[in-house]
């Protein structure tokens, strides 16, 4: 099932699609307004992109340094080659600490690794604590956006969910009241949790620190209360020095939502201080995860995607994402960056994603770290075509197109014949031939003469 098929349900509800489109465009506009407040904005993007390019060339050195510093500070560092190894390490830590209840804050990495189902299968309760993530967790869905996980839902649906799951009155759909109910429910779960799992936004080699940002403070509560903190970090998330954090943190929230900064920007380095009540000493574990990142690094055409700081700006601006919704991508990360990352994980499964794109280039324009997203999407199309991942019909169509387009006479005869036939076919039939393009829109009427003919006629008319 391709992107177009998975989008069908979402686009069928015009009201929802329109709302989704407009609200994300509004977030994009807030990003523009925030960027406009900083005259040095474009220079910041250059600096951030420059730091990331530099980092990609010396990842082993930086991670060794991080490991050394973090270990010296009292953290324990683990290495995971792939998702399975990551999940095993996390489970082993929880098992040896006899943990049954875990609170987790947003981490696309653990989502990518399928950590929740893995732990749940072992009888461990995992509660996603970001409100949007909690909502999709209760609905047994995946997040549809990397920083607004429940953006595909309307308040009524969330009200219904809370009515079922938390006993709120039927029909209650006020965001303030629903949030208050979730807060109460989650506060109890924070207090009961025996371990907190977080993602990582930035790791700092020089100091062995790592930074986690949230607006809700859920990563903070989830690590301030339990004695065990496990942080899962992708290999691409490192920067050399603490000073390097400045350009990234100046860009991140402004690009994401137009805020000047996220509410909580927390810098972890050592296990949390002991409360002094005689319990076992708190522990901090960092799991460094590859899971395909080194493979992406080896691909010159795509390695710059590893610079991504997961701000979501490319999703908010993408005309396809805004109108088709995150679930239509069928990948952990949706939108332009997801369409770049997913085919490297599983080309056969995600071969269609680089085509869910109009190549308008808006994603590359907003990306704070200058990932050349639309160029990479175009490159993926040819890579996937060459490796035989395109459907047979498209391959045939392109072979024919290549022949026709490279021969002027043949092109002229073919388009003449095409116009002659197309003008005589009922438009219903014609729209069928357009495949997904014409599923929800009609082809324009076919002119009697070609562009060349029209142009020649105009030239003649000129005085």
């Amino acid at each position, binding site marked *: 099932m391709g992107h177009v098929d998975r989008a069908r349900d979402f686009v069928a509800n015009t009201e929802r699609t329109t709302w989704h489109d407009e609200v994300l465009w509004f977030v994009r506009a807030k990003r523009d307004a925030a960027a406009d407040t900083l005259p040095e904005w474009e220079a910041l993007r250059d600096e951030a992109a420059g730091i990331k390019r530099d980092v990609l060339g010396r990842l082993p050195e930086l991670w060794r340094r991080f490991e050394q510093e973090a270990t010296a500070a009292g953290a324990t560092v683990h290495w995971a080659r792939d998702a*399975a190894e990551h999940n095993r390490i996390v489970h082993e830590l929880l098992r040896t600490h006899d943990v049954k209840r875990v609170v987790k804050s947003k981490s696309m990495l653990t989502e990518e690794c399928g950590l929740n189902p893995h732990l749940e299968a072992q009888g461990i309760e995992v509660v996603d604590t970001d409100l949007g993530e909690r909502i999709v967790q209760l609905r047994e869905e995946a997040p549809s956006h990397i920083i607004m996980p429940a953006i595909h839902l309307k308040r009524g649906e969330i009200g219904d969910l809370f009515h079922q799951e938390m006993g709120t009155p039927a029909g209650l759909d006020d965001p303030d009241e629903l949030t208050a109910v979730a807060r109460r429910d989650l506060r109890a779960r924070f207090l009961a949790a025996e371990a907190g799992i977080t993602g990582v936004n930035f790791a700092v080699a*020089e100091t062995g620190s790592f930074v986690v940002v949230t607006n809700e403070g859920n990563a903070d509560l989830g690590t301030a209360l339990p004695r065990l903190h496990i942080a899962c970090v992708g290999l691409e998330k490192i920067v050399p020095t603490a000073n390097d954090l400045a350009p990234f943190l100046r860009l991140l929230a402004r690009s994401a939502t137009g805020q000047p900064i996220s509410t909580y920007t927390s810098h972890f380095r050592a296990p949390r201080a002991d409360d002094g009540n005689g*319990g076992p000493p708190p522990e901090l574990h960092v799991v460094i995860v590859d899971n395909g990142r080194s493979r992406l690094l080896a691909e010159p055409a795509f390695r710059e995607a590893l610079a991504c700081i997961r701000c979501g700006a490319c999703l908010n601006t993408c005309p396809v994402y805004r109108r088709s919704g995150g679930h239509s991508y069928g990948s952990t990360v949706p939108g332009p960056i997801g369409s770049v990352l997913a085919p490297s994980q599983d080309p056969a499964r995600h071969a269609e994603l680089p085509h869910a794109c109009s190549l308008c280039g808006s994603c590359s324009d907003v990306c704070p770290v200058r990932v050349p997203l639309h160029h990479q999407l175009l490159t993926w199309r040819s890579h996937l075509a060459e490796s035989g991942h395109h459907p047979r019909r498209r391959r045939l169509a392109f072979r024919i197109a290549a022949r026709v387009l490279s021969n002027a006479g043949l092109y002229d005869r073919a388009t003449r014949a095409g116009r002659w036939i197309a003008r005589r076919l009922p438009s219903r039939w014609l729209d069928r031939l357009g495949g997904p393009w014409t599923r929800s829109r009609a082809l324009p009427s076919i002119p009697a003469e070609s562009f060349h003919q029209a142009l020649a006629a105009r030239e003649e008319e000129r005085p």
Partner: protein
Amino acid sequence: MSAREKTGRKVDGDDARSEILARLEAAAPEPGEPFQRVPAPAMPDDPTSLLGARLGQNGGVLVTNASATDWPTHLDLPASPAAFAHVHCQAGTALPEHGVASRGVGLEAKAVHDLSPLDLCVLEAEFSVVENGASWHVPASALERGAALLAEHLVILTRRSRLVATLHQAYPRMTLGHTGFGWFLSGPSKTADIEQALVLGAHGPRTMHLVLLDD
């Protein structure tokens, strides 16, 4: 299949570590082009109003006309601080004549958990950042870190002499390499996960005041 599954022994992770580092060595691109660092922007002409505006965007409130002895009377809270049963004050921030002093459950807390629910937490920033309303704070203890999150209302005291223009000036001021845990606090806990409607008090404080004191 991993070494662990094959042999059934507990692997210390060295295999994964060396394999990942080897993969990274092999895949590493040529060193990147040199790039320009952004020079740290100067302090704006009117730092107070910019700080207030940015903090306001985060949902926080800047208090500018208060003194070190009367700031509690400038807070916009549902009740006077004296009416709160549970208060945590960072050392040096208490103002007992206005009812701001650590009291209630916090004093007997044996674990961070005992602090919930806390009415008010008062902290002192090491410095604050004008461009985004963030205040840098290093909790003195596990309880203080928890108190800042479990409180319904958060007040942060900061000083005019401790304002920096941007994050570029902020990082050189910290000693991150010696800080087990430190954070920028920039407003109340907030969410917009239900239809993008902004709600303050998602998990932590519902209000946040930043009190700017003269030196």
